[in-house]
């Protein structure tokens, strides 16, 4: 069995800031955690809690001021052999704006060491996969934020990495973009990849993560499964499908009575809404019929 995918021990990162470089800003302080291969960890926390810094350290873009990080055993993130097994989606839009999407992806694939013959097939296929097939020859500078995010996902999943680090992957994504993210993450999990995602909105990550880690002020405050961290132990969610509005009204009345007799109360009861993705799909189907 392979050793831990990620092992971070007492990791700290501080920066000197200010005009005289005299002020010390601590971005991460004494962070220790590990992650087994094939697991998905969500980093949650408010802005400035150190999520992005931790991902940059794990990606080998930056080095810790204190402590150590080991990936897949004893290797550090800076080692070339490890970088071949790693994918990183940084926050923001750091890709070369003057290149067309297809050229930029070719460049990134080339820097990742992908042979030309493989690039020729995989690059256009990945652009199709993230929904940018018809924008392959558009310059990245002309992309919207959501399209940039899709491109970022495309470059991260271009190879078949063993460790995937995604910083705010849902930021700016539209509903079809969420679908793309779900698809690539499912595929990655299916082949046993380890995934670490960061978001300041926990609800973005819950569906994907087997574990959540709460960061604040550069420190790890809590870690556990989404149910452990987010479940309140006092509210039951029940979703019922496939009946008429009259039957739903009767069911709601019965449930309210049953809850009252059990010493509880119904907090919310309303007709569920479709997802935006379903709405887009339905509208597209209507447009096609016209």
């Amino acid at each position: 069995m392979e050793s831990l995918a990620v092992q971070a021990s007492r990791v700290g990162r501080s920066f000197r800031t200010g005009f005289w470089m005299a002020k010390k800003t601590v971005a991460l302080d004494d962070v220790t955690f590990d992650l087994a291969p094939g697991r998905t960890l969500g980093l949650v926390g408010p802005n400035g809690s150190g999520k992005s810094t931790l991902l940059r350290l794990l990606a080998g873009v930056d080095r810790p001021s204190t402590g150590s990080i080991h990936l897949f055993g004893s290797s550090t993130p800076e080692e070339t052999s490890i970088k071949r097994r790693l994918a990183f989606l940084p926050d923001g839009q750091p890709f070369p704006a003057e290149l067309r999407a297809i050229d930029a992806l070719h460049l990134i694939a080339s820097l990742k060491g992908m042979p030309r013959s493989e690039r020729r097939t995989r690059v256009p296929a990945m652009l199709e996969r993230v929904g940018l097939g018809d924008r392959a020859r558009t310059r990245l500078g002309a992309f919207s934020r959501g399209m940039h995010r899709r491109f970022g996902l495309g470059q991260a999943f271009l190879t078949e990495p063993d460790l995937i680090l995604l910083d705010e992957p849902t930021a700016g994504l539209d509903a079809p973009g969420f679908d793309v993210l779900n698809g690539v993450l499912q595929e990655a999990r299916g082949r046993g990849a380890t995934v670490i995602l960061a978001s300041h909105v926990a609800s973005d990550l819950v569906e994907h993560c087997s574990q959540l880690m709460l960061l604040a002020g550069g420190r790890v405050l809590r870690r556990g499964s989404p149910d452990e961290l987010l479940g309140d132990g006092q509210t039951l969610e029940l979703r019922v499908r496939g009946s008429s509005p009259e039957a739903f009204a009767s069911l709601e009345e019965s449930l309210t009575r049953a809850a009252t007799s059990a010493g509880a109360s119904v907090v919310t009861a309303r007709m569920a809404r479709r997802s935006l993705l379903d709405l887009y799909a339905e509208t597209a189907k209507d447009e096609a019929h016209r």
Partner: protein
Amino acid sequence: MTSTLSFVALLVRRLATPGALFLVICVAATSSDARAAWTFSVAAIALIATVRAAAWPDAWLTGEGDWLGTAPVPRTWLMASAWIGAALGTLVLTAAASATIAARSAWDGEVGHTLLEAERIAGPARSIVLMPGESFEQPIGEPAAPASPGRKREVRVRSTVTLGGETPTTIALIEAGGASQRIFVARRTWLAVDLPGAATSVRVTNVGEGALAILGPDPVEVWSSSNAWLGGVVRMWGHASAWLVTLVSLALLLGVVMGPGVAAVLAACVWLGAWMIWSRAAGAPPDWLPGGPAFQRALEATHEQRSPLAPPTVAIAAAAATVMGGAAVGAVLLRHWRDEVRG
């Protein structure tokens, strides 16, 4: 290797595309004066190249390089690639400007037999003073090509009037193979005479009452008309490129430790500072300074419809040293995309 080439291509593209378009428009709009065209083009390229080179490290250090940071390519290679990209981009720009200027010159009929090519540069290494009645003679050898109708050949000697004579001006007589010319000398000037086919030496005699100085090193130049205008453009391109890659290297290096605006200005200041310090200390900027006196002489040559001389070896060596120094220090400093100080 492929990945490095791809990265170089990106950087070349970053620099070359907007710059080349800008230049073609600018140069096409200038007068047919080759010196003005060169000066304007190289100044424009210097501005674009220096500012862009200074901005690259800053962009990397502030997060734009994150996607590069995860590529399994050594960072020293990326840094070296960035520099090669910057240098190649600069060369592409100057090559585009050269081609435009050459095409413009050809269009204006400035080339052909009217262009003079240096055939021989000779003379003593130090200046010599000729008092009234004294002479200086220098062998100039056989013509490099046989005489033909319409082919012009001239010799010129760099001179000036100096202290020591009875009057502050003097008269020089320059003679070569039966041809002669009397020239009044009141300041630094070229004593020139057309060479007959048989001339193998030139003689300068001070026939006035003041003191005449023959200014070394190598004050005697033999020029002959030539069709090889392309060689001149290439040499001019060499002068411009040596200067530009020096500025780009300095800007790239300084950009690692300071913001792009300050780095670009400081790169220009370092070069100007070198010029001023040596001018003050030695009376003139040194020949080895890329973009220095040799470049100035080359610009003057284009103004006189002469083909410029090649950049001196020391200037090329100085440019190469700056380039390698900049790349080496940059590679070391950029080991972290975001070092502690600039985090």
